[in-house]
C-alpha cells in the first residue's frame, strides 16, 4: 500500500539530534519524545473529536430513532438499516440515490480519458501555448462548484445554450437518464483539466531514452504510448482514480444545486442531508445511510490499494 510505504520511509528517516543507541532511554530523549508528541497533539485531538468520536456517534445514532422536535432518542435496533432497504417509501429513495451516485461516477473515467488524450496531444505537438491551455483547462477546478452548477443548470435547460448550440431538442433536466448524462458531461469537462496537468507532468517524467530505444526498434508513436507511456504514468492514473472515486461518492452540490433535488440525480450524500438535516426528521435513517457510505468508501479504497500493485508502476 502506497501510503503505508511512504510512512515506513518516513519512519526510517534519520532523527535528530541524539545519536545514542536505542536501548537506553535517557532523560533528554524522553523529553524529546514528549515534545514530539506535544507537537502532534493538536491534530490527534482534532482527529479524536471531529473524526473518531463523530464516527462513533454516527454509528450510535444509526441504531436510534431521534425526534429532533421533541429531542427524544429511542433505541431502534437495526430498524434504520432495514428501513433503508425495505421501507416502501424510503427504500426506493435510497436505492435511487445509490444507483445515481454510482452512475455519476462515470465522469471519473471520462475526465481521465479526456485528460490523458489532451496531455498526449500537448506532448505530441509540443504545443506553444501549453501553459496557457493548462491554466485555462484547470480553471473549473478552482471555481466554485455552486457557481458552476448554477450556470450549468441554466445551460442545460431545454431552451438553453446547449440545445441551441448543438441543435438538439432534449429535455436534460428531466428525472430520467438525461439529467445524469448532463451531470456526467459537465463533471467530465470540469475535471479533465486537472487530469491533463497531472498526466502531462507524469509524461515529462518518463525518460526520453525509453522512447528513443523503442523507436530504434521501430515502434510507432501509438505503440509507444500504450507500451511505454501508459504503464509508466500509472501512478497518476491511480491517484486520479482514487481521489475521483472518493470525491464522487461524496457528491452533493450536483444534486442540490444543479438538479434542485430532482430524483433522477439524488446522491447518497444528498439523501443523508435530506433525511437528517433538511427537515424529514430522520436522523437515525440518515446515520445508517452514512455508516453504509463510509464502509463502502473504505472498501473501495482498500480494494484499490490491494489491486494497485498489479497494475501501478513503481520506481
Amino acid at each position, binding site marked *: 500500500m502506497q501510503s503505508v510505504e511512504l510512512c515506513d520511509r518516513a*519512519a526510517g528517516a534519520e532523527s535528530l539530534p541524539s545519536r545514542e543507541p536505542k536501548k537506553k532511554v535517557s532523560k533528554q530523549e524522553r523529553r524529546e519524545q514528549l515534545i514530539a508528541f506535544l507537537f502532534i497533539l493538536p491534530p490527534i485531538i482534532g*482527529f479524536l473529536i471531529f473524526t473518531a468520536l463523530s464516527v462513533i456517534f454516527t454509528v450510535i445514532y444509526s441504531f436510534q430513532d431521534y425526534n429532533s422536535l421533541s429531542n427524544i432518542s429511542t433505541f431502534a435496533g437495526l430498524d434504520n438499516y432495514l428501513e433503508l432497504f425495505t421501507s416502501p417509501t424510503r427504500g426506493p429513495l435510497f436505492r435511487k440515490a445509490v444507483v445515481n451516485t454510482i452512475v455519476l461516477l462515470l465522469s471519473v473515467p471520462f475526465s481521465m480519458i479526456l485528460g490523458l488524450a489532451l496531455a498526449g496531444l500537448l506532448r505530441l505537438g509540443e504545443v506553444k501555448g501549453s501553459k496557457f491551455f493548462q491554466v485555462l483547462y484547470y480553471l473549473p477546478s*478552482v471555481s466554485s462548484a455552486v457557481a458552476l452548477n448554477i450556470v450549468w443548470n441554466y445551460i442545460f435547460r431545454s431552451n438553453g445554450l446547449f440545445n441551441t448550440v448543438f441543435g438538439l431538442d432534449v429535455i436534460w433536466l428531466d428525472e430520467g437518464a438525461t439529467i445524469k448524462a448532463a451531470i456526467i458531461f459537465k463533471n467530465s469537462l470540469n475535471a479533465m483539466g486537472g487530469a491533463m496537468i497531472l498526466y502531462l507532468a507524469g509524461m515529462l517524467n518518463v525518460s526520453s531514452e525509453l522512447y528513443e530505444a523503442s523507436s530504434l526498434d521501430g515502434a510507432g508513436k501509438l505503440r509507444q504510448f500504450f507500451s511505454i507511456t501508459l504503464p509508466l504514468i500509472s501512478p497518476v492514473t491511480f491517484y486520479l482514480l482514487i481521489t475521483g472515486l472518493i470525491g464522487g461518492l461524496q457528491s452533493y452540490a450536483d444534486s442540490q444545486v444543479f438538479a434542485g433535488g430532482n430524483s433522477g440525480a439524488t446522491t447518497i450524500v444528498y439523501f443523508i442531508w435530506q433525511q437528517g438535516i433538511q427537515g424529514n426528521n430522520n436522523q437515525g435513517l440518515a446515520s445508517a445511510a452514512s455508516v453504509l457510505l463510509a464502509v463502502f468508501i473504505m472498501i473501495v479504497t482498500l480494494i484499490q490499494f490491494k489491486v494497485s500493485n498489479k497494475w501501478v508502476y513503481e520506481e
Partner: protein
Amino acid sequence: MERTKHISMPFGQRIRGILLRVFIYAVLIFGSLFLVMPYVWMLLGSFKDALDANALEFRFLPQEWIITNYTDLFTSPNFPIFSAFLNTVIVEVSVIVVGTFVSAMAAFSFAKLKLPHRTFWLLFLMSGMMVPYAALMLPQFRVFQELGMFDTLWPLILPGFFGNVSMIFFLVQYMRGIPNAYFEAARIDGAGHFVCFVKIMFPLVKTAVAAQVIFWFIGIWNDYFAPSIYLITPSHMTLQALLGSLNPSMNRQYLPMALAGAVLSSIPMLIIYLSCQKFFIESLAIGGVKG
C-alpha cells in the same frame, strides 16, 4: 520527438507535421470553447432581468442590460454579498493561520523528532481522510447546536484549528529532505525544538507550505456543504452558502441574481488563480506525481 526539430524532413512529412499541429490546436481550442462558455454565459445572464433570463425561447444577449442584480447583492439584507465576503475571509484567515502552524509543527515532529510510534500516528491521522464528511456531520451538527454555535462561523473554523492531514502528509515528505545539519548548530547552542521549528524549519519550508496553503485556501473558499447546513442567517453566511441560498433550481426568479453572485464570488478566486497560475500548475503536478 526532441530531434524532429533539428533534422530536416522530407516535404510530405513536414506537411503531415503541420497538419497534425493544426489538428491539435483545433482540438484544444474547441475544448477551450466548452470551458469558457459557462463563464461567458454566467456573465451574460447576470445582466438579464428575471423574466428575460427565464424566457421560454432561447435568448443570447440580454434584452436590456441591467445592473440591478449586482446592486441588489450589495443592498439587499437577504443576499448581503459584502458580509458574505467578509465571513469567508474570516474563516479563511483564522483556519489557515492557526491550521497551517499546527500542521507544520506536527509535520516537523513526524519528520525530524524522535516521535515514538510515528508510523502508527501518521496512519492514524490519515485514516480520517477515508471517512466521508457525511458520516461525521450529524453528531457534529447536534453538538454545535447544543453549544449554541449553530448559525455561527465556529463549526467551520474550529475543525480547521486542529490542522489538515493532507498538508501534514505533504510537509512530512518535504521536511524529510532537509538535512539535519541545519538544526545541529542550533541544538548545540541550546535552542529548543520549538525554536528550531519556528526559526529554522519553518522558513526553510515556506514555499512548500505556501503551495499547500493555496490549495487549502481554494478548498475553503469553495466549500459549500458545511456552510450550507450550519449558516441560516444571510448576514452570517459565507459566499458559497449565500450563493446556495439563491439556488435558482429552487426559485427560478433568483436566476440572474444568482449568476451575478456567481460572478462576484468568482472574481477574487480568479485573480488569485491567474496571478499565481504557474505556482498552481507546478504544485498540482508535483502533488499528483508524488502522491
